[in-house]
């Protein structure tokens, strides 16, 4: 049963760390990351019939 305590402790630690980093990032006000560029190819587009030459 002692392992339960350890598990709870580690989980809480991870949760607190997550919260801490999240708040830090939020306060920094920076919501743009390099990884966002990875979405560039996924833009939607439509198509129109090419004019006859």
């Amino acid at each position, binding site marked *: 049963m002692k392992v339960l305590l350890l598990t709870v402790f580690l989980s809480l630690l991870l949760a607190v760390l997550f919260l801490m980093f999240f708040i830090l990032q939020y306060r920094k006000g920076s919501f743009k*990351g*390099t*990884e966002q*560029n*990875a*979405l*560039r*190819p*996924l*833009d939607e*587009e*439509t*198509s*129109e*019939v*090419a004019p006859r030459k």
Partner: protein
Amino acid sequence: MKTDKVTIVYDDDSVRKFMIASIFWGLISMVAGVFIATQLNFWQMNGKFLEWITFGLFKSEGVEFLTFGRLRPLHTNAAIFAFVGNMMFAGVYYSTQRLCRVRMASDLLSKINFWGWQFIIVCAAVTLPAGFTRGKEYAELIWPINILVAVIWLVFAANFFWTLGKRNERSLYVGLWFYIATIVTITMLYVVNHLSIPTSFTHSYPIFGGVQDALIQWWYGHNAVAFFLTTPMLGIMYYFVPKAANRPVYSYRLSIIHFWSLVFIYIWAGPHHLLNTSLPEWLQSLGMLFSLMLWAPSWAGMLNGLLTLRGAWDKLLTDPVIKFFAAAVTFYGMATFEGPLLSIKSVNALSHYTDWTIGHVHSGTLGWNGFLAAGMFYWLAPRLWKTKLYSVTLANVHFWLGMVGILLYVASMWVSGITQGLMLSETIEGGTVLKYPSFVETIDAIRIPMLTRMIGGSFYLIGFILMAYNIWKTARGGTPANGTVEIAAQDIEKPNWTKSFCSAPIIYSLLIIFSVCLTIFSNGALFISGIFLTIFFVIVAIGHFEFSSASWEEWYEKLLDHGFAFSVLTIFAAAIGGAIQIIPTVTMQRADNIEGRLQVPYTPLELAGRDIYVSEGCYNCHSQMIRTLVPDVMRYGQDDGYSHLGESVYDFPYQWGSKRTGPDLAREGGLRSDEWHFLHMLNPRQISEGSTMPNYPWLFKKEIKVHQLPNKMNAMRMLGVPYPIDLSEEDIQAQIDEQSAEIVARLAKANIFAEPDKEIIALIAYLQKLGTFEVRE
């Protein structure tokens, strides 16, 4: 609030044209490939077969336009520049417009790019079988076509960079980085390796000779693979794989590491094509080391590509596009594992000059390039013609035919290469005697793998024909359509040219590059100040970065906003390896780099013979480089050891070769009689039973082009060959008459009648000169 919308219509007409051209030329290149594979099995395929299929109407022992030596360059050039080149343009034109959210900058430049490139290919298809060649692998095209290639490439570059400049998107996506690297690096490689002195409209000599030419050739040759067959494909992978899988690339950060390490490391690896030769040891070690290092970034790219399919693996069952992409990226990984392996000197001692290398190259071109092209075409066709793919079943059949074809091809080349490599090195009697002294014996041992290669290639070709039919039916069933996108006017952020320069990472990058260039290209006080300035700017940049509490992401993002600075950094990363390897070798006095031996210059007749040797593409099957390896020296050395650097110092172009389908010829001179060569060129099997070499009957009919020799000798003199300055045309003619009369007289003694003005006499003169040198202290 009302938002103004701007509609952008992409130029997909160019994409359609490039795609159709790629498929057409792909078919031509593969037909040529299968055809020359049959020639390696059946010598009759060098022209004699025409006698059979025309039921004797066409009589010939061999057709000059159809020999392996002339068609192999056609196959490689068509596969690289026509098939993959057009596919690359299709992929670049399609994705660049979407990633920049703007139409290509100039429709006129796009049209010039397309039609100019096709014109170049047609010129190549005519000149290569006609025997007009520069005699350097993948750089065979003659100088007027070289200029055309450079012009059309610059038109493409102008159109691409202009489009980047007009983009409606701040940042440059990773695919575009790879395109930038392709454009700037190919420009640099192509120009340097094609520097030539023309002697006529169809002939020129490269300005580099011997070891210098070898180094520059493989700096170019290896990086043609790197920056023409790999970086643009990676750009295409980074765009089309996420598109097809409908999910972003696995790790964008990994792609940053992938890009910069690949661009920096690739360029150093060229000397691995010259391992165990007389190339200076430090260059060989650098080539091997960087080739091994290259494994890491290549696999970063492969893993990034494959893991992009995370959660979409089920599509492998239903979507042929994903099937082709997954296989292509896997082949990229396998080929880039095998490449570093073959670059280890001890492995290379076995593999080099054998079919193992050919198998390696084909796993890259057929598996990586060919399958990526197929995946891209199957994905594009329904979108470009606004319809559904004609037949998914046919696409699946194509996939499996292609896959089995590649595996048959590659496996047979492993068997063939390792078998022949081992046989050529095997000794008996305590290592004092070669076990298989006859080269033909080793050819006999690989006949089954050679046949399997032909079958594998045919499978791949049939699969490709199915694709061509499938795409044609798709196009016929649909209507050409252009992609459009609507963007809000306020979204369009036009980069401010002046303001974008006033950014810390840009300024530091440019200042550091300037200082490093000062160090590399100057001496004395400027050299010292270059070192100090480099150190100074690096420290200031680090200090600024630390104190401003900026993040790497921010600084890198600023670089991506600025296409110019990004391109300059790319040029620098790609150029540094080449500069460090090539500048010392090229600027060194050739007289200091001859290892105690100096080649005896060719007489006019021998020079004419050498040009025939180059024109017939003999270098495609025969090397002229005895490596610093015991079996090589035992087999070809003739008591003179390995080929020293000075023995090819007057060879423009160098003829060290990269494949031994036949034996090495570095010391051929004096080894056999004139009549042996005469009869051997007429019918190799008459002299050497089991030989696969073509017959060369036209050499006995065509006259030596004596009138071209004064110009050629003048060019040679400009390049440093010690021909007398006062050599008149009459002197040249007199020398030719004298030497050819001697050869004809020797042939007459063997009861062979020969005319002194025929090409065969010049070729015999050249072959008998090979390996002639003076000893210098």
